[in-house]
């Protein structure tokens, strides 16, 4: 394969990986504070629709972007209410959220199917875009991709270098210890759930505003579930989340190219590829040395103070 073929493929990899990266990082923040939210798929869809609606209404893609985040956050708030306030089962609540979110986005979105969005345009970064190879691969995208470059670093900084990150980790590892240290575990978990929901919603916003530039139903296409899997693959570390997201993005881009090249392979099989690969990678990383770093209290509710 020549470099001329490879560069567009890698650039497409970054594009396809970005929404999954947002969602993976969001779910990671939520899980590290101790809450398992399986509603990522639903939050992404609601985020995508909210972003589409807001940007169409206002004409501003940035307003749409933030609205997408808020859409995810709103759905995550339901999860917070069920699991943190009423100590309901996290798995059940998350699954219900996926069903609710998917249904909501489809119900509200059907009238708009096929409508174009005033999304983000390409914004080659000065100087950086001119670097050979790296420039076209990484620096000739839209603004949301650049935001996603900064995000893992910020999240890494949050957990490794700040008091708040330490407190969030404590809420996920040993809530009793966090409480004994004078921290509010429900408060920290709310923060984790809402911040995570916001990031997942941003991932959804990327889908409607940057990736497709138009609204269709089922836009997330399982990417939310991929994100849940990638959090485990990433061992709850932001750096590995980048790797996982781009791995998924790479296969996604590759199979799209393959389809476009008019191969004899059935497209359904090709569409399966990124998902199959994610399962395989997850399987391999789990076999090699158990799943590491899972927050010890992940999925365990904390009785409200009384």
């Amino acid at each position, binding site marked *: 394969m020549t470099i001329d073929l490879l560069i567009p493929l890698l650039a497409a990899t970054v594009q396809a990986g970005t929404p999954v990266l947002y969602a993976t990082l969001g779910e990671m923040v939520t899980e590290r504070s101790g809450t398992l939210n399986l509603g990522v798929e639903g939050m992404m869809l609601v985020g995508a629709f909210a972003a589409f609606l807001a940007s169409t209404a206002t004409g501003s893609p940035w307003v749409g972007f933030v609205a997408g985040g808020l859409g995810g956050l709103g759905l995550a708030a339901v999860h917070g209410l069920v699991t943190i306030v009423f100590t309901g089962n996290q798995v059940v609540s998350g699954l219900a959220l996926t069903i609710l979110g998917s249904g909501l986005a489809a119900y509200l979105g059907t009238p708009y199917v096929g409508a174009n969005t005033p999304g983000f345009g390409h914004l080659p970064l000065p100087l950086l875009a001119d670097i050979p190879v790296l420039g076209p691969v990484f620096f000739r995208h839209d603004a949301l991709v650049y935001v996603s470059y900064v995000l893992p670093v910020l999240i890494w900084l949050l957990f490794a270098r*700040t008091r708040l990150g330490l407190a969030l*980790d*404590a809420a996920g590892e*040993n809530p009793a210890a966090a409480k*004994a240290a*004078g921290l509010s575990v429900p408060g920290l978990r709310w923060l984790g759930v809402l911040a995570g929901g916001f990031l997942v919603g941003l991932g959804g916003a990327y889908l409607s505003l940057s990736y497709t530039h138009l609204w269709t139903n089922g836009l997330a296409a399982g990417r939310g579930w991929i994100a849940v899997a990638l959090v485990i693959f990433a061992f709850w570390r932001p750096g590995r989340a980048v790797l996982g997201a781009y791995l998924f993005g790479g296969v996604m881009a590759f199979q799209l190219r393959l389809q476009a090249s008019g191969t004899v392979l059935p497209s359904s099989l090709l569409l399966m590829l990124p998902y199959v690969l994610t399962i395989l990678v997850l399987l391999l990383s789990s076999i090699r040395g158990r799943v590491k770093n899972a927050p010890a209290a992940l999925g365990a509710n904390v009785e409200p103070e009384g």
Partner: protein
Amino acid sequence: MDRVADITVVRLEGISKSFGAVKANDAIDLDIRAGHILALLGENGAGKSTLMSILAGRFRPDAGRILVDGRETVLSSTKDAIRAGIGMVYQHFMLVPTMTVAQNVLLGQEGGFWLNRGRMEARVAELAEFFGLAIDPAATVSELSMGERQRVEILRLLARDSRVLIFDEPTAVLTPPEIVHLFAALKSMANRGKAIVFISHKLEEVLSLSDDIAILSRGRVVDRVETRVVCSKAELASRMVGREVFLEVEKEPLPPGEVVLEMSGVTGFGLKEVSLTLRQGEVLAVVGVAGNGQKALVETVTGFRRPATGKVNILGREWTEFFRNPDWKHALAYIPEDRLGLATCPNLDMVDNVLLTTRQGFTRGPFMEHGRARQVTADMVRDFDIQPARIATPAGKLSGGNLQKLVLAREFYRAPRLIVAEQPSQGLDVKATEEVWRQLLAARACAGILLVSGDLSEALQLADRIAVMFRGRFMDVFPVSDTAKVEAIGLAMAGVGAGH
């Protein structure tokens, strides 16, 4: 010595707290003074832990006032208590195992947004040095021993300038050298003006460490005494239960019956060439410092572990054959050390807990005879004087002594012929200990008892013969009447002077 001292940091006035019908604390007054070590002594369920949880901001009292530095203070959360300078080291450590020592110490502390790892570790190291609590601030907590983890807990309180430090049975998880270390640190903290509250069952610890003793019973402070005027353990014990305690139980030797347990040359899992013979009517006490193979011995006899090499015969049957289909009755009973973990299910009521090991006696076809089981449990509750007497009480709600009585009642219902009792009186108050001992001695009539104990006085009280274990080996086995050897147990436990 006129210390900073004698200033009352915290005063409790008329503190009352009820849980349902149970009055855990009933109009308690207590002064906690700077520079003093105050021991809180009392039976299980006397209300010590409740009182301290109130002080640590975990519970709100129903009535009464808490004065901090003379000002009335409401402690409605752990955070409030921390602000007031009150901190508690819980029995089960409140640490995040995946984090480092320094991270745990500084968790939840006020301060800037960013963490500076170097400065954080330097500060913890400095504190550790100042109070003689040697520890590596960069070590991960999960890799630390229990003693080191406890130091992390203490450092956390010190880092917040806590003035009142409460310790809930701090020696329960420590090895003897760690206890020495802890006591030195506690004294050094008191000398630097900290107020220490020390909750314990162990009379000798209270005597050797504390300045003042407050004795709680049934939710009230029944006695307050300065430690230096207390003459002996016996005096303290009698003050504690309000009647003359004889931590001696009467024991008449029984004629040895048939052999119920025979081990020869059992090696593996930390055991080395262990051989013993136990007869009906006899108590064989295995003593030694914890971690010298007692666990492996118990697990082998109770069927958790297949002996790697050597022979084990239980009730005349070879190990494999015995455990292939053990009888629930007239066979083997195990009284584990871990009462809430291994012996019972905390969320099940007393009846279901009794059924855990006796269910074979309550089946008719595929059905359980619950009515009869309830009747039997009610009998046990009456015969063993288990409080509260409601058989629907979940096991987790019973105090340690009452739970142990339930376990004994259940196991003895099976009329066992071999009993393995592991630390049967650990964590129990004087009265409960005495009852447990009596029950065990009574059970000798039809059983042989293998008693594994870390408490030498328990072994001497109950046993006919004593085996001293060191590094998986029996150093010596001798009758308890052999005073010369009894004198030398300490040495044997340390591995000195192999008897044979």
